[in-house]
């Protein structure tokens, strides 16, 4: 409460003086215009407010329960269960709502994420630097040479479609991609851009991996050309499920 000592001339003053006139009248007026210091009433809570509380607690709690990913430190995604793989919530893409993709489509994605930088999305490569994949001897020939060089990499000069390449080096992919990814991407590369070559299965890749386990280094062109230009052994015929029918079903090359 404001105190009411009016005779201010006699009291010692703190701080600077703003030319105040210690006028009884003025001080009284200042006091009079003040209302009481605030105090609190005691109204009870309204039932509607409790309803609001309940709703807030319900929704907040439900949200917390549903999207916490089990409170684990590893769960970066809010869904505790299986992640929706290709869920496009905003939906402008539309086309990829399918849960199961064909090897061609999977391979295309692997290609886009890994190979496209050099070989370009149209498979034409870069003149003088990165060989093309469209119509190349490796992609349209037997799958073995191609799989070998994708797995282990290639360095040194190489001639593709009559052009000489050799300034760049292709890295090995055996450690980065899984058998399935390798099979998918090789299958894709062998069936896009006008290529119509035999597909490749993950089992074939796995077998090749084992075979090449003792060959740590990248291949060179002479080494590759020394290998017969044939497909990998193992069921290439009908193996990819519903596979290359995605882009018009090329029959596997014998």
């Amino acid at each position, binding site marked *: 409460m404001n105190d009411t000592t009016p005779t201010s001339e006699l009291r010692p003053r703190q701080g*600077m003086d703003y030319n105040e006139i210690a006028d009884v009248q003025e001080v009284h007026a200042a006091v009079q215009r003040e209302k009481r210091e605030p105090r609190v009433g005691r109204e009870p809570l309204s039932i509607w407010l409790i309803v609001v509380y309940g709703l807030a607690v319900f929704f*907040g709690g439900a949200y917390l329960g549903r999207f916490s990913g089990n409170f684990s430190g590893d769960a970066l995604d809010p869904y505790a269960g299986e992640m929706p793989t290709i869920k496009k919530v905003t939906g402008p893409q539309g086309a990829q709502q399918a849960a199961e993709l064909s090897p061609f489509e999977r391979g295309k994605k692997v290609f886009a994420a890994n190979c496209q930088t050099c070989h370009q999305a149209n498979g034409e490569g870069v003149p003088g630097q990165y060989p093309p994949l469209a119509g190349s001897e490796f992609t349209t020939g037997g799958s073995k040479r191609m799989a070998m060089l994708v797995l282990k990499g290639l360095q040194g000069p190489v001639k593709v479609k009559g052009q000489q390449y050799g300034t760049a080096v292709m890295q090995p992919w055996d450690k980065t991609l899984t058998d399935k990814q390798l099979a998918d991407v090789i299958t894709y590369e062998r069936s896009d851009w006008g290529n119509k070559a035999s597909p490749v299965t993950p089992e074939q890749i796995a077998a090749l991996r084992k075979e090449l386990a003792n060959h740590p280094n990248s291949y060179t062109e002479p080494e590759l050309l020394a290998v017969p230009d044939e497909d990998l052994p193992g069921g290439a015929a009908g193996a990819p499920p519903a596979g290359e029918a995605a882009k018009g079903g090329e029959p596997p090359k014998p």
Partner: protein
Amino acid sequence: MIDASTRVPVLVFYTSAIAWLIIGTILAGLVSFKLHSPDLLSGVSFLTWGRLRPAHMNIMVYGWASMAGIGTAIWIMARLCRTVLRYPLLLVAGSGFWNLGVLLGAGAILFGDSTGYQWLEFPRYAAIILFVAYSVVASWAVLMFRHRRGEQIYITQWYLLGALLWFPWLYAAGQLMLFVVPVEGVLQSAVAWWYANNLLFLWFGAIGLGVAYYMIPKVIGRPVYSYHLATIGFWTYALFSSWTGMTRLVDGPFPAWMITASIAATILTLIPVATVGLNHHMTMQGYFPLLRYSPTLRFTVFGAMSYTVFSVVGIIISLRSVARYVNFTQVSIGYSHLGLYAFFTMVIFGSMYYIVPRLVGREWRYATLIKLHFWASAYGIGLMILMLLAGGFLQGADMQNPSLPFSESVETVLPYLRGRSLAGVLLAAAHFIFAYHFGLMLLGLGRQSTVPTFLNPVEAEESEPH
């Protein structure tokens, strides 16, 4: 008189705060204009946008808002503790250090020493000074509290005591975990946003709410509607608001539970928002006509209503389905300004209009200037937030559309940024008017009168406001 005893410290804080407000406003103008006209004054290192923006933010947060808040808090604490302010020199010293800290920090940012953490850009040498300054102020507050008279601790005091304690703990925790014993990796961002968010709620929000709880009942002369509402409001506010920090990082590289917890907490802040809003509304019930007359009431009620809007907007934009559109857009800026300006700054303006006459013994000289200030601020911030929220949402929609190149989103938001600059001009006008008016008061040029300055002439009534 208690008021007289508070005069020097509070006026020192207010004067510093208003000076920082003007400097910050000029910087804000530059920041806003440079965003859509980037070649304006470009090429000068200390005027580059990336330095002006944090300098503006820090000056407003630590220079204007904190100091004005502390000034008001000092005065209200003295009143509510019903005791004369002791140790005023402590506070003056505190303010001096604080000013030094802000000056050093802002200079450091402009000349290339920012730390890169939002709201914690002051380098260590400035941060330490701020911390020292604050400890001085806080120790004063504790001392005052111990000397208080009266049994009941009024609502405002809960909020103010909370704020005065939370701020140093927050600041210390932030500095410790980011600079002294730094956490690793993305946790730095988590800690930084925990700090920034809690600064907004536990320091500024608490002061703002506490001051509103004092000013509204005081000016209209009625008790606050309900004690129980106030209690629930306070504790749920403290409990839930402090968890909402991660909503600025939705879908970021964090364990999902952290983000979800923040979103859930934001939903739960519906409880304190509804509670406090209802409390204030019922207190004002029947007294809304008084808004015609009392500047304090106008600013304070505007601020209190803005608090509701601010919280609702916060809930909406933190939900994941909305966040994916508004993340990384100007909506975030609009939201911050809703809280810091439309809510906190307006409440503080109201409190300054109330307190300053009691310190200098004069009334505000020109009612017109007060009216201009109010309307320029109100329209200014209203326009600004509208521009930022609308523009930001459109920007986000464009960003989410992968068939549009990214620069489309920037193109879309540019006209809204220009609108925001216009709003900034209004706000700048408001601040210059206010600073001028305040300067008049400081120089003793206010009206000498026993009747406070009303915004409109008062007809004869029994219950006079103010």
